[in-house]
């Protein structure tokens, strides 16, 4: 069993599963936004603001942000683990990535719930 202090869940199998569940959420969110953009050419502010003003869209965005947080952590962690061999540099980068993602998560929640 793969177990690591810096990975998202500390368990390789759980990381694997979360990476896939979050991928499906993000895929649905991106496809939804793409369809929305393509079906609203010449978009106006009222349409855009109206979309994010709806409760379901706020919840959808919130779940997508949580998924992005986990997905990016697991993905970047995998890349760093494979290519950055010196432990000190790798852990430093991992901590920076996690702190950035946490900042983005809180920033995103603040943005979504104040629209």
């Amino acid at each position, binding site marked *: 069993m793969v177990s690591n202090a810096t990975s998202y869940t500390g368990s390789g199998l759980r990381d694997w599963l979360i990476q896939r569940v979050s991928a499906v959420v993000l895929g649905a969110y991106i496809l939804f936004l793409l369809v929305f953009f393509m079906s609203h050419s010449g978009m106006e502010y009222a349409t855009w603001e109206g979309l*994010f003003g709806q409760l379901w869209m706020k919840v959808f965005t919130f779940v997508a942000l949580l998924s992005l947080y986990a997905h990016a952590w697991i993905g970047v962690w995998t890349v760093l683990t494979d290519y950055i061999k010196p432990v000190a540099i790798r852990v430093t980068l991992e901590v920076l990535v996690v702190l*950035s993602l946490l900042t983005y998560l809180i920033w995103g929640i603040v943005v979504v719930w104040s629209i």
Partner: protein
Amino acid sequence: MKKNRPVNLDLTTISFPLPAIVSILHRLSGVLLFLIIPLLLWTLQQSAFSEEGFLNVQDALTSTLSKVIIWVLLSAMIYHLIAGIRHLLMDMGIGEERKSGKVGAFIALGLSIVCAILVGVWLW
């Protein structure tokens, strides 16, 4: 272990099979998408908070340079999505053999190129 094993780490002399290229592009696009998260959040914040911000963003997006940037980012996003779907299919045992893996990689790459062209048509 033999000490004098042949080592070949010169990347320019290694021939990458198609699935390897699809895999490394999946990683590259993923890292790129991670790096642009603040840009996306900032754009959402600007565009959804006030009509003035919305118009500013809309205005900024009309230049050729920003269209090229959006084209690259959207293409990377769609590529990452398609390569991700291929991963999910492989988890189900579809396309993970040597031959079918090559076919899957070819389809993923081909589909992404078609999508990138369509995104370009849509943007311009």
